């Protein structure tokens, strides 16, 4: 279907005009008064599920890698890459790095709205890592400081002078989600 109606929208009729919205700044920038009103902590702290005892009948590593990427995109990741890990503490050979578009930088915009990219990233990494565990392989997500470094290694983009990830598709407006470390047989690409 080449003729999606999305492509025919007139550009000046935007449904959401942020400048007209008196509450938008509160949504993006005011941190929640009660942390329990944000679901991010709950998802982050949720214990990891079991690895399914029977391993799934997998395809060859290149195909599995493309399936993992397709799944990540279906779950809402805008960029996804896979890189090899040299010295991982738990001995995982691969890292899957997902990034989602972020209109506001989640490191500065601490409101529930500013954290929406984090929420979208957590949805992708939680379901993707759970799926890999159900395929019978180990997969763990953890917020780590080397997320940006691994994103560069996974060819999502390059670093600029200040150490921010710059991508060809979205510039610096991306949020790198938690890195998934796994022993699923993949190929780096």
């Amino acid at each position: 279907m080449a003729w999606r109606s999305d492509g025919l929208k007139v550009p000046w009729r935007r449904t959401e005009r942020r400048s007209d919205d008196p509450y938008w700044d509160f949504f993006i920038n005011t941190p929640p008064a009660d942390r329990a009103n944000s679901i991010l902590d709950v998802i982050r702290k949720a214990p990891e599920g079991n690895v399914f005892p029977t391993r799934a009948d997998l395809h060859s590593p290149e195909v599995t890698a493309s399936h993992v990427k397709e799944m990540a995109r279906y779950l809402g990741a805008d960029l996804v890459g896979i890189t090899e890990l040299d010295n991982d503490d738990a001995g995982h050979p691969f890292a899957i790095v997902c990034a989602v578009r972020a209109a506001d930088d989640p490191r500065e915009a601490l409101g529930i709205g500013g954290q929406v990219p984090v929420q979208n990233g957590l949805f992708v990494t939680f379901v993707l890592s759970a799926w890999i565990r159900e395929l019978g392989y180990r997969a763990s997500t953890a917020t780590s400081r080397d997320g940006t470094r691994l994103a560069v290694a996974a060819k999502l983009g390059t670093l600029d002078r200040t150490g921010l990830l710059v991508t060809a598709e979205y510039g610096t407006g991306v949020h790198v989600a938690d890195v998934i470390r796994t022993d699923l047989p993949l190929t780096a690409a």
Partner: protein
Amino acid sequence: MAVTPGTETPAPPYLGRSVRIVGPVANVDMNQTPHPKNSRGELGKALFNWYRNTISRDPLTRVSAPNHFADQRNFLPSVVNQAPKGKVNSRQIPVSDPAAMTRHIKAVAHHMGADVVTVARAHPSFLYAASTPPSGARDVYQNRSGDVYQGRTPEQMAERYPYIIVATTAWDYDKLQAHRHYIGDAAYHVSQMKAQLILKALEGYIKELGYAALRGMSNPQAAGLASGVGELGRNGLLIHRKFGARIHMPDPIMTDLPLVPDQPVDNGVEDFCKICRKCAINCPTNSVPFGDKVVFNGVEKYKINWLTCYKVRPYMDAHWGSCLTCATVCPFTKPNVWWRSLTVWALSTCPITARPVLVRVLKAIDDRFWGATRQTRVRWLGYDSGIKPGEQACTVAGCTAEHGTAHAAEPVGNIGYYAPLKENTNRFVKRDA
């Protein structure tokens, strides 16, 4: 005659042309709806075991479908819905213009990824009944309905929390074409998880604005009808202007945030369903009625036989989880492109007296191009609906892996297969008639 404030019954709400309230409506007890009945074992052993004791063979279903996981910790909604509830912010944001706040809430939900957001005016008949303490089972949010009511009547609740926010997601059209297959299940269950995440985040945000956000209170279909998500079709599903029947109806948010409610819509569903019957013809269990609307609990509508619809599930467990046939074959369920927008626009602007003629023309076009039953082959992530049920084959291009199982012949042509029904499904109908 003096009436205690909040106890008089308001006039029945207008729900559009597809559903009419004709008599007194008793509030539905959520404990008497299908899933709670089944989890108490009231629908028989086969269904109980399917619902409570079955682990799916499909890894993606184990991650995304309620109750068929191997480990609950791998299932996101169980984490999200059982999260501790936050407090309502004591510093309430004043709302001078409810219309601006309505636009804001809709923009927020869209920003989080919702496809459809509407606001309904609450009506007592939409609410689930407050069950009395002995049977007050907890819902998925760990509420007891009695706790949420706090001794108030439904009338008082609808007055105190006058708005219901319906926010939801649509399923992927292309994957849905392989319904009665794990691919269709993925389209359904993944977007359902996303909708639950969005609603939980929206609930937290409304509390941060300083207003109440109650879950597990309102019937989503009633709120959806009143707020113009769509009209109720013959298949018992809300049919949306853009997405057709492929939208979820998760639990909406009841709130006292000042908003402007939306109105019911007319998409021509009422006129189409009178003539079409595609869902009734295709339903594998004959659960969708061929006949006219009936009055049930004071509501005039098409009523499906939920019990027969439910009873087929344990038999198909090895092939798929969710049937979705009635949603897929519905002529309104089409890709979201200009020609479908044009068609729905033409139908909804046509004078009502001339609609039967137009519907017959559109139905003929639909039958000609889509067929009475679609059998599209869909390939996704190594799943392939062109492989006959029960057979195994690897149809992934470039795969050099040696698969452990014996493989059947390559699939031929571009036809997708449904898992066959093991039983003559008429037996379900006869037994319960």
